[in-house]
């Protein structure tokens, strides 16, 4: 055997090894990607299951989750006629009201960090915001039960020991502030320095520049932060469940001083004792939550695309669809 042949064999073996390794890494990457599909399929299956499976109530009585009642009933976890629509509404409006607190706070905090304070203080404050972002939700819940609930109870309105939707709103706002602040801050740091300098050179004061130029040109980044904050607020479970009071009756869901219930808190409350239908309908709620988050983030990303200063009508999905349809018509 010649030297070349041996080298060639070595090369071939190396090549085969590389191919196998590449396949192996591709396999690992596919596993990483497939988990989300598994999650969606399993929860969709288990979420629909209670509507068609009969659970034994007594010896001769069987129940299953009623489909109409699931959307209309104003009581959660009640003998197969549990309704979730008020949970959905509470989830949505708690998140919206929490934005009223968190959006201005985080925009102003980001502005303070990026434009007002000196460099050394900026690093300290930035670390503070990052620390706040890394505090686990259960500690926010503890703070809510220990500080926010007594505060709400002391407002002079009759509450259930302070456990109310208002407490949940405050906690949600607190939890989404760091995310929003960090994204807005990054957007504000990215604002073109020449824009700021020309605004100052034209005679605008530094506060005018901050408000009109810096905030104005980082709208897209701020909005990205708001989307992330909404996502976190919609899916937040532990902290909300600890402060909201877990009211399974939905007749007073509009009263922010009364105890309420959201999709996530309803899933989590009393999980230790749950079994049978009571356990399985939680997965239906999970399915509703997934669909809600998908819808909200999809519609928000459409809005975000519109907010982009470089947005063109030709790029929008609707425009493309229309163009394709017209092209088809033209072809015919």
């Amino acid at each position, binding site marked *: 055997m010649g030297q070349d042949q041996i080298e060639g064999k070595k090369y071939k073996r190396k090549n085969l090894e590389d191919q196998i390794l590449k396949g192996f890494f591709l396999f690992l990457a596919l596993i990483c990607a497939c988990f989300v599909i598994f999650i969606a399929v399993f929860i969709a299956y288990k979420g629909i299951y209670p509507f068609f499976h009969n659970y034994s109530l007594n010896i001769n009585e069987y129940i299953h989750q009623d489909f109409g009642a699931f959307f209309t009933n104003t009581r959660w976890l009640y003998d197969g006629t549990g309704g979730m629509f008020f949970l959905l509404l509470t989830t949505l409006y708690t998140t919206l009201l929490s934005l009223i607190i968190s959006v201005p706070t985080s925009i102003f*905090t980001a502005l303070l960090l990026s434009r007002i304070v000196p460099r050394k203080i900026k690093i300290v404050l930035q670390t503070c915001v990052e620390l706040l972002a890394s505090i686990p939700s259960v500690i926010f819940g503890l703070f809510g039960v220990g500080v926010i609930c007594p505060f709400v109870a002391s407002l002079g309105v009759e509450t259930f020991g302070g456990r109310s939707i208002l407490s949940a709103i405050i906690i949600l706002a607190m939890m989404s502030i760091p995310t929003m602040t960090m994204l807005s801050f990054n957007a504000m740091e990215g604002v073109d320095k020449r824009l700021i300098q020309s605004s100052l050179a034209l005679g605008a004061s530094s506060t005018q520049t901050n408000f009109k130029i810096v905030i104005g040109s980082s709208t897209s980044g701020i909005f990205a932060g708001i989307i992330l904050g909404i996502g976190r607020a919609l899916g937040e479970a*532990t902290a909300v469940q600890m402060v909201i009071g877990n009211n399974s009756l939905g007749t007073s869901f509009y009263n922010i001083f009364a105890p309420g219930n959201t999709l996530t808190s309803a899933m989590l409350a009393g999980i230790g004792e749950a079994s049978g239908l009571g356990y399985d309908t939680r997965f239906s709620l999970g399915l509703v939550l997934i669909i809600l988050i998908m819808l909200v983030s999809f519609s928000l990303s459409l809005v975000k695309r519109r907010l982009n200063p470089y947005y063109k009508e030709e790029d929008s999905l609707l425009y493309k669809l229309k163009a394709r349809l017209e092209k088809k018509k033209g072809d015919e």
Partner: protein
Amino acid sequence: MVSIKTSDPCIKKGEKNRLVSRRIKDGCGLASTIVFSSFTFIILIWMIVYVFQNGTSLLNSNFIFGDYSQSTTTIKSKDDAYVPLEYNYANSSNAPYFSSRWGVGFEDGASNEENVIYIVDIEPNSPFLSLVDSSNNAVTINTSYYLSSLTLFMDNGDINVYGPKEGAEGLARGLDNAYSIFDGTLTSQGKGIRGSLLTTLALIGFSLLFSLPLGIGGAIYLAIYAKDNFLTRMIRTLIDVTSGIPSIIFGLAGALIFIPFLNAVTNHSGGSIFSGSLTMAMMLLPTIVKTVEESIRMVPNSLQDASLSLGASKSQTIFKVILPNALPGILSATLLSIGRIIGESAALIFSMGAIIGDNLSLLEGHASLAVHIWTCLQGETPQYGSACAISIIILIVVLILSIAVKLLSFSLKKKKGI
């Protein structure tokens, strides 16, 4: 000329007004910025102060290494053991109330809203250490116990009962005048977090064991092999979607996928550390893939080219050149993951269980530290003290981790800059 002269002061006056109103507006803007943004920092400081104020007093070795469950023992002196009057022990650890005849120190305290007397100090060779239970078996007594009541044989022949009403002071004085203990109830303090601490450590270990190889492998594929085609874009999109799923959904999925699977394999019902750590691994993957991929991309191409041109195969290049150079990124992904595992509650409540255990067992799901806090605050009497004490531990760990990650990224940037 005339027209300018007459209008000049008017213009100046208007200008001055405009400047004043602008200054007021600017002041308001700045003030509102500072007021709103101080809210963010007030929250952080308030949370830390609250947690430390309520938790520091509880944070001792009995709390960290003790059992959660309480146990009660009946104690008495051995039948023929009398403590002579001339016994005199020194109060070496400065207990608030000390019986020098028995060599034992007490303190008033409360447990579950009920007044009790804590044993804070037992001197070596104290007759208190030779007490027995009702069936004459030796009892190990240490400072993690408290007394609900103690019945004493006094020197003057009386039999007196001491309890929380007499307090630690009364009990210490009573013991000084007693030669034997007739009967007493000893309760272990409980409320310890040893089980949850061990569970959390095991959870961290197994979650990293499952998620790091997967995540690093996926990152290597995406950073080195992947071409810009449909499959790659699909993998990226799916991983991005995974990072947006709320943790409670991961909990539901973990309870659905892993618990039945593991129950079938191990013949054990309910959640376990394995099901919890597999669920956590699912949650951690997007972070690990993204961080590691970024750090692999930061490895200079010249290194890779040099290795390949020296005759090394691609696999040798990956394992001996690229991965060692991407180590800071892998390390920071690990630290981020640890922080997330320690703080996670909703997913673990579903996939591992919320029952607080005392001992580590891999096939039984017990609460982790964060879930321990959640369980402490459910129910009629929330235990704020232990919840705050655990929060201190979690906060300190999270603080150290986030500073470490920051330092790592600084060093990485510096390296790249040079």
